[in-house]
């Protein structure tokens, strides 16, 4: 059943724009203004892709929404203490909204026909992570961390406008500010530390099938758990695949 749902969502996502049209105009690419949506659940992100793709196409006629599938990797310094994310393929409410991140990016980039372009954007993201902690798989405790991430990212684009593809490399730094934490020890948000997160991404912008797709990593450079609550240290890295359904992408699918 789950596979059928996933297949249906992906199929709709691919063919959603078959009968639609966009109007063509020269767009202002100097302004970076995007909304990021990431999820650790493929059903959620497939549904989000459909909705945001339709919005990009019919309402905004711009690549405003970006989607990502994110996977959190957790590690502790305590032997035998396991930390694992919720089932990515699950369809309970908790699992559907596992590892969600929503935010805005605002900045400026050069967009000239030359090979090299660059830009800088600031970002603000809300992130909720859910994971289980325990010493054996049958007895794991539920944890949920909520935080805000504020930061700046530099981007470098390689590839001139005469080419069909370009590569965009991003590197940035974000400050993670705690908003809330739920665990068996209570709901005191001080269980969670504040700290720095570095962000790296490599995106491939192309006219072909793999247009606007990339990979990224958010690396936490601090211990998520506050020492006064636990003896263990919790490290986290989030890796993900990111993509954008653009109005032109939809048009080219229709033309095919």
């Amino acid at each position, binding site marked *: 059943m789950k596979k059928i749902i996933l297949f249906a969502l992906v199929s709709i996502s691919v063919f959603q724009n078959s009968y639609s049209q966009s109007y063509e105009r*020269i*767009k202002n*690419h100097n302004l970076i203004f995007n909304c990021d949506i990431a999820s650790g659940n493929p059903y959620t992100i497939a549904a989000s892709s459909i909705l945001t793709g339709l919005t990009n196409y019919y309402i905004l006629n711009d690549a405003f929404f970006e989607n990502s599938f994110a996977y959190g990797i957790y590690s502790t310094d305590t032997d035998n203490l396991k930390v694992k994310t919720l089932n990515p393929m699950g369809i309970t409410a908790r699992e559907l909204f596992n590892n969600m991140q929503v935010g805005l990016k605002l900045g400026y980039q050069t967009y000239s026909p030359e090979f090299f372009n660059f830009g800088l954007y600031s970002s603000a993201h809300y992130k909720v992570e859910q994971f289980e902690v325990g010493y054996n798989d049958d007895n794991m405790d539920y944890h949920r961390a909520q935080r805000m991430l504020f930061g700046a990212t530099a981007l470098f684009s390689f590839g001139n406008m005469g*080419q069909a593809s370009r590569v965009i490399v991003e590197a940035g730094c974000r400050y993670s500010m705690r908003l809330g934490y739920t665990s068996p020890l209570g709901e005191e948000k001080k269980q969670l530390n504040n700290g720095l997160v570095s962000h790296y991404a490599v995106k491939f912008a192309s*006219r072909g099938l793999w247009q606007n797709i990339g990979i990224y990593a958010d690396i936490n450079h601090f211990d998520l758990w506050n020492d006064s609550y636990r003896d263990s240290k919790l490290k986290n890295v989030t890796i993900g695949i990111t993509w954008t359904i653009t109005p032109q992408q939809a048009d080219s699918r229709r033309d095919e």
Partner: protein
Amino acid sequence: MILCIVCYTLLVASSNSDMELSKAERKVKDMFYDLEAISEPITESNKLEIDKKKIAFSEKYFMLTDQYAPNEFKLLGTDEQGYPTDIAVRTYINMFYDMFHNKKMASYSFEVSDMFGKTLDVPEFKKGEATTQFAQIRVRKVYSKNNHPFVALEDTLIVNIEHMKICQWTNKSSIVHIGNSDGDNLLDIEQLKANAALAYNRKQYAKAYQIYQSIIERFPKEGDPYYRMAVMLYKRQSGDTLRKKERNRLILEYLDKAIVYGGSETSGCADNMRYWITC
């Protein structure tokens, strides 16, 4: 003293130019020698050599691997595929080879009868910058059947001096990349393009734009200037007085024309640029 220095400078510049021209002529001669060799009857001793020449032909002599060559096989009645336009050099060499080695078409022969060249001078070069960019070589060649000459053609080849490779090859059968131009028009176009490029490199954008405009006025089916003008408008190097809406309309219009009239490279670049600015 000053007069001597000026005379010496002119002499050196002139001899440099002559050297470049003779190198370009040598290049074109080698190409036609290769064609003559390919047209020879195949024997066991020359088969390998002919195959090698045929395979290396495009890369050895041409700037681009997908460059156009004239489809003179239409005139010769050997174009069995019925190509409607100019053909890629690779296709040319295959058809040329087939013409002489296909038993159905036997009895053809080919020879070069005359060759003469000159440099395309760019009058606006500053003193000390006088490097010749192109050489134009004209080649008269004759196709014979059963030893009777039946088609004589004059090819015009433009050699890029810097790379010492051929960047244009036309004769009266050519119809695409320089429109319906004959050799003289080709010379004009290359001259004007060189002038525009020079002005652009000197940051004389208004002048470069004006030259490109003059090219499309005379040769409206020449694709490259449309692309250059679109880029200049997009980069706001020209068209200062245009309103944004009009500027954008012109950019898209020029890119569309570059896609239609440009060679494969220009057309591809224009198509890609159109995508990136509207996506």
